[in-house]
């Protein structure tokens, strides 16, 4: 007993049979290492569980309000049934549709701006840039991801809003477009990095074959390399979209944050994330408003999770297609 329990220090015991005999305390430490590795699994599961825990009673307390979360309703003072998010109104109105529309509007606009710019940059860096240029420019673009989103929010709020106001003479200084341009700044590094990786993963032989057939460089790039990397580029857009949907501070500061339902890109809008950030602080625990905000959190978790899985599996598929099944990771 005493001999076994004593930790073995210093020199390892020599052994001629395969690996050295591992002292028992080392085995215990190794078990602990394995256990720690699973903290991340526990974390993901408990994020879902504990956010859902605050939202779940929605389904049994006050069940009669459930349809109001997504269906239009005839409220007093409105001409027609409408989607209204007015959690502090009387009666409180928790229709999440305006928030979903606001989220789609802002992220959609942001993708329209960021997607092409990031893709073109990726094509330049992966296909055309000399090595020297690539080694400087690539990390520089990736540095974008290192600017805190609250700083980008501040920049949108002050500079982009001012610029657009002067340019178009807008009714609302803070609007969906301002937030979208700010948001585009966070999407660009994501789309850029993933699509650049995809382009670079295209085997050299394809480019050489194309050149041997007499194709110009632009023909090789646009007709051979980009199509071959297309699943990876699609993944880049999906991942960028996922990032944009979850972004909080920029939209909170720059979107004008009014839950308006319309199609105009320059009207005020409000996203799911900004709603949670702006309202949870003043919400009584356990009330319907509180539960709806946590339910929105669950929704965000599930959407971003699904987008991330889609993106990841597209990247993996592309890698298998280009390099054969053994080229995992």
């Amino acid at each position, binding site marked *: 007993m005493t001999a076994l329990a004593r930790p073995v220090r210093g020199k390892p015991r*020599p052994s001629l049979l395969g*690996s*050295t005999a*591992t*002292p028992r305390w080392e085995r215990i*430490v190794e078990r602990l*290492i*394995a256990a*720690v*590795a*699973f*903290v991340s*699994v526990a974390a*993901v599961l*408990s*994020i879902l569980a*504990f*956010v859902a*825990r*605050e939202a779940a009673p929605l389904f049994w307390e006050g069940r009669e309000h459930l349809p109001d979360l997504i269906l239009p309703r005839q409220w007093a003072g409105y001409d027609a049934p409408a989607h209204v998010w007015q959690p502090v109104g009387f009666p409180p109105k928790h229709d999440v549709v305006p928030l979903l529309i606001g989220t789609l509007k802002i992220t959609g606009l942001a993708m329209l701006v960021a997607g092409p710019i*990031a*893709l*073109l*940059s990726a*094509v*330049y*860096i992966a296909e*055309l*840039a000399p090595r020297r240029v690539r080694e400087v*420019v690539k*990390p*520089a*673009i990736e540095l974008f991801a*290192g*600017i*805190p*989103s*609250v*700083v*980008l929010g*501040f*920049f949108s709020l002050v500079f982009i809003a001012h610029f657009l106001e002067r340019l178009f003479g807008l009714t609302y200084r803070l609007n969906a477009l301002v937030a979208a341009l700010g948001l585009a700044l966070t999407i*660009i590094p994501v789309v850029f990095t993933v699509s650049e990786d995809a382009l670079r993963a295209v085997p050299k032989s394809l480019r050489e074959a194309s050149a041997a057939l007499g194709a110009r*460089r*632009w023909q090789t790039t646009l007709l051979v390399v980009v199509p071959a990397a297309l699943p990876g580029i699609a993944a880049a857009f999906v991942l960028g979209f996922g990032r944009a949907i*979850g972004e*909080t*501070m920029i939209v*909170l500061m720059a979107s004008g944050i009014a839950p308006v339902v319309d199609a105009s890109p320059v009207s005020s809008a409000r996203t799911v*994330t900004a709603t949670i*950030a702006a309202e*949870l*602080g003043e919400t009584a625990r356990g009330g319907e408003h509180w539960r709806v*905000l*946590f339910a929105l*959190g669950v929704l*965000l*978790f599930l959407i971003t999770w699904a987008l*991330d899985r889609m993106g*990841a599996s597209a990247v993996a598929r592309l890698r298998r297609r280009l390099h054969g099944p053994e080229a995992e990771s």
Partner: protein
Amino acid sequence: MKRVSRGDWLLSAATGAAVVLVLGSLVAILGAIVVRGAPVLSPKFVFGSPGADPADGGLLPVILGTVACTLLMTVACVPLGVTTAVWLSEYAPRTSTLAGIVRSAIRNLAAVPSIVFGLFGLGFFVLFVGGKIDSVFYAQATGPVFARPAILWSSLTLALLTLPVVVVTTEEALRTIPRDVREAAFALGATRLQVVWRVILPHAKSGIWTGVILAVSRGAGEVAPILFTGVVGWQSRAPTDARDGFMHLGNHVYLLATQAPDVERAQPALYGTVVLLLLLTFSLNIAAVILRHRSRAGARA
């Protein structure tokens, strides 16, 4: 010499213009902020004690709060992250299902929106863990002791948020260590744990540091996760207890930009605070990029 075709020229022009646009906006953002913010940074503004109005500066407690929160976060997430990476790279068989589960969990964790971390921190750390601690140890207390937003809970929430950064960077560093190094150590009779502790980890030092720096830079800039888990708007002192609320540079930027009573008057303080926040996060990022570049060059040589 081959004549450049019009198509080639167009492609270069369009893609080159996109790169110039991206880099240009990076320079414009940093330039616009630093030009207005740097002159504000007097010793009194940065290290002075705060007055009644945040617009007058005196950011010492804000900086201390940010640093304390980030340090606590680092202490919590680095050991976790490095250990996870060690398990993934040194212990788990490459194709094992368990390793696959851990990897996809890390990936998921990195994709969770920061505001959801905020909800989780509130629902799990503050209300659940804090509530349990209170009901066991502080049943007689009049108010909540642990079951309220505090710097401790903010740091732990941020630690989970930055965990993937540490894991991914460390694992990458561990994987660049050549097999021979491990085999040489095993051949000398070292046990697996000795190889990890005495050979692998020292070898991966710069990679691990890169991960730590990236995590600090990421964690120090996040605002959404701490909104409901511990940050407070304006108080005159720095936190002295893990159960205190704290002020944070990022949150300070948010408050000064959106809720200042007199926007014009708050402008200089706002720019100054943004520059400080950038100094903390962005410059660390640059340091990480350089460090990573060096360690890769080292691995190639």
